[in-house]
C-alpha cells in the first residue's frame, strides 16, 4: 500500500513543477506594470518606481526569478499580497476555512440527497419516479449556477425575506475565530443562537454550490446501480429469493459505490470553480472571491500563489481519492 502511495506521489512531481511554471509565467505575461499596481491610484515617482522594481526582484532575468520563486515556495514562502501587504499564505489560510466549510456542506448535501435519489431512480427504472428524478438532475446539471443563485436570492431574500443576502453570521454575534469554520466557532463561543444564525446564512450558498454535484452524483449512482443490478451475482441473489431490499442494500450498493466515490472525489475541482461563482454572488469571504478580486486588482503574488495553492489542494485530494480507491478496490494496485 505504501509503495503504491509513494508511486502516486512521485507521479505528482512533474505535475507540481509544471504547475509552478504555469503559475509563475502567467503572472509575468499579465499586461500592466506591477509597481503601478502597487502604487495605487495616485502613481509614483520614477526613482521610487525603479527602487520598488529592484526590491521585488523584477529587474533580474526570468529564469533567476523563477528559481528563487520555486525555492521560496518550497520553503513555504508564497510572497506578499500587494493589496494587503500581508503574506499570501496567511491571507490564503485565513480565507480557506470559509470555502472548505461551504464546499463540505455542499458535498454533504449532494451526497446525502444524490445517492438515495440515484438508487431510487435505478430501482424504479422506467417509472415516472425515475423520469422525474433524472429530469430534475439533468436540469440541475445544466444550471448556470450564478443565475440560479440570483434567482434564489430574488425569491428567498427579496420576496419572502427568509434568508439573508450575504455574509456568514448575523452581526450581533461576535467571537474570536478559532477554527475559521463558522459553524464550529459559533458552537465554541457558547453564544445562544449563534450556531443557528451561522446555519441560516449558510443555507442558500450551500444549496447553490451543491446543485451541480448533486445532479452528477444522482446520475452517476443511477447508472452504477443499473450496471450492478444487471450483473450475474445480483441476478443470482434475486433468483435465490433474497429480499429486494437486501439485494440493493448489501450486494448492489457496495459495488456501485466504487465509481460513485471516485466521482465525488473528482468533484473537488468542479467545486472550486463553482465556489468562485457562488462566493461572488453571496459575497462569501472565501478563496474563490479572493482570487477574483486578486485578478481584478492585479495582485500578482496572490494570483500566482493562489493558483498554485489551489492546484496543490486539488492534487492532494485527487491523490487521496486514488489511494482510497485502491484500498476499496485492490485490483488497481497491481496494475
Amino acid at each position, binding site marked *: 500500500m505504501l509503495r503504491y502511495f509513494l508511486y502516486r506521489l512521485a507521479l505528482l512531481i*512533474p505535475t507540481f513543477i509544471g504547475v509552478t511554471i504555469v503559475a509563475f509565467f502567467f503572472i509575468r505575461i499579465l499586461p500592466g506594470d506591477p509597481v503601478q499596481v502597487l502604487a495605487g491610484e495616485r502613481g509614483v515617482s520614477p526613482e521610487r518606481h525603479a527602487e520598488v522594481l529592484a526590491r521585488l526582484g523584477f529587474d533580474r532575468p526570468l529564469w533567476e526569478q523563477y528559481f528563487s520563486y520555486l525555492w521560496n515556495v518550497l520553503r513555504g514562502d508564497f510572497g506578499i499580497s500587494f493589496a494587503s501587504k500581508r503574506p499570501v499564505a496567511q491571507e490564503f489560510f485565513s480565507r480557506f476555512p470559509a470555502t472548505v466549510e461551504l464546499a463540505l456542506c455542499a458535498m454533504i448535501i449532494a451526497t446525502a440527497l444524490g445517492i438515495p435519489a440515484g438508487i431510487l431512480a435505478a430501482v424504479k427504472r422506467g417509472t415516472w419516479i425515475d423520469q422525474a428524478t433524472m429530469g430534475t438532475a439533468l436540469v440541475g446539471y*445544466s444550471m448556470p449556477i450564478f443565475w440560479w443563485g440570483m434567482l434564489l436570492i430574488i425569491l428567498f431574500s427579496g420576496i419572502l425575506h427568509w434568508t439573508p443576502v450575504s455574509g456568514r453570521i448575523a452581526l450581533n454575534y461576535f467571537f474570536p475565530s478559532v477554527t475559521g469554520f463558522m459553524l464550529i466557532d459559533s458552537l465554541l463561543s457558547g453564544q445562544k443562537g449563534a450556531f443557528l444564525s451561522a446555519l441560516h446564512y449558510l443555507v442558500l450558498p450551500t444549496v447553490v454550490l451543491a446543485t451541480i454535484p448533486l445532479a452528477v452524483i444522482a446520475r452517476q449512482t443511477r447508472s452504477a446501480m443499473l450496471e450492478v443490478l444487471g450483473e450475474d451475482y445480483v441476478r443470482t441473489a434475486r433468483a435465490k429469493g433474497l429480499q429486494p431490499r437486501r439485494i440493493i442494500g448489501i450486494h448492489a450498493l457496495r459495488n456501485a459505490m466504487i465509481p460513485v466515490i471516485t466521482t465525488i472525489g473528482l468533484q473537488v*475541482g468542479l467545486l472550486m470553480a463553482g465556489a468562485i461563482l457562488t462566493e461572488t454572488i453571496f459575497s462569501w469571504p472565501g478563496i474563490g472571491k479572493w482570487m477574483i478580486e486578486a485578478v481584478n486588482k492585479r495582485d500578482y503574488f496572490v494570483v500566482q500563489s493562489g493558483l498554485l495553492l489551489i492546484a496543490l489542494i486539488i492534487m492532494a485530494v485527487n491523490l487521496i481519492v486514488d489511494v482510497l480507491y485502491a484500498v476499496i478496490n485492490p485490483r488497481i494496485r497491481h496494475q
Partner: protein
Amino acid sequence: MSAPVAETAPRKSGSMSGLRETWFYFSQNRGAVAGLVIMSLLVLIAIFSPWIAPHDPARIYNGSFLVPPVWQEGGDARFVFGTDAIGRDILSRLMHGARYSMLIGAVVVSISLVGGIVLGLIAGYFRGWVDALIMRIMDIILAFPSLLLALVLVTVLGPGLFNAMLAIALVLQPHFARLTRAAVIAEYSREYVTSAKVAGAGHLRLMFVTILPNCVAPLIVQATLSFSSAILDAAALGFLGLGAQPPAPEWGTMLADAREFILRAWWVITIPGLAILVTVLAINLIGDGLRDALDPKLKRS
C-alpha cells in the same frame, strides 16, 4: 488496401447501418428528440435573428428604460420581454445572443476537439516519452479548476469573446486528449490495426484513417457535453466581466449588467438566465441520448 481494414473493423459508427442504428435508438428517447427540436429552433433563431428580431439589439429607446414584460403592469406591446437598463429590447437581444452562444459552442468544440484528438492520437499511438510528456501537460491543465484557469488566461490575453473562447477551448481540450488516447490504446492491439500495419500503412494513415474512426463514438458524446460546458463557461466569464464586450448581447454579459437590478427588475435577470438554461439543457438531452444510443452496454437492457 483499405478493403480488408473495413472488413476486420469490429464496429464503425460512420457506416450506414451504424448511423441508422444510432438514429433508431436516439429517436426512441423522447428527451433527446425534444432536445434536438429545441436546439434546431435555437439554431434557426440564431441564423435568422437579423430578420426575425423585432428590434435592432443595440437600438436604445430613450424614455423606455427598464420596461417590464408585456404581461406585467406597465408593460409595452413593443417589448415582449421588456427592456434593459438603457431601453434595449430584451427579446431582440436574446435572439442575437443565440448567435453568440452557438458560435461559442461551435468554435470551442472545434478547437478543443481537433487539438485533443491530435494530441491524444500522438500520445496513444507513439507511447513512451511523447505520451508521458503530453499526458503530464494535460495533468497540469487539469490540476487547476477550469473556470479559474480560463479566468486567468483571459486576463492575460485581454478580455473579449475570442480570447474567452480560446481559454475555454484550452481547458476543455485535455478531456478529448485523454479520451482519444485511451481509445487509441484500446484499439491499437486489435487485429484490424495489426493487419493494416502489415499491409504497410504509414503512421499518419494508421492514426487518422485506420484507428480514429473507431474512436468516434465517445468523442461525439464528449463533444456534445463540451458544447454545453463551453456555453456555460463563456456565460460565467461574461458574468465576471471578462467575456464578450459591449454592446454585444451575449447572455452571460446581459446577466452581469443586470445584477444590480436583482431586487428591482426581475425580468432583466430571469429571462437571459432562462435562455442559457434551456439551451444547455437541450444540448445535454441530446448528449444523453447520443450516449445511450452509442453505448452498447446500455442498449441491451
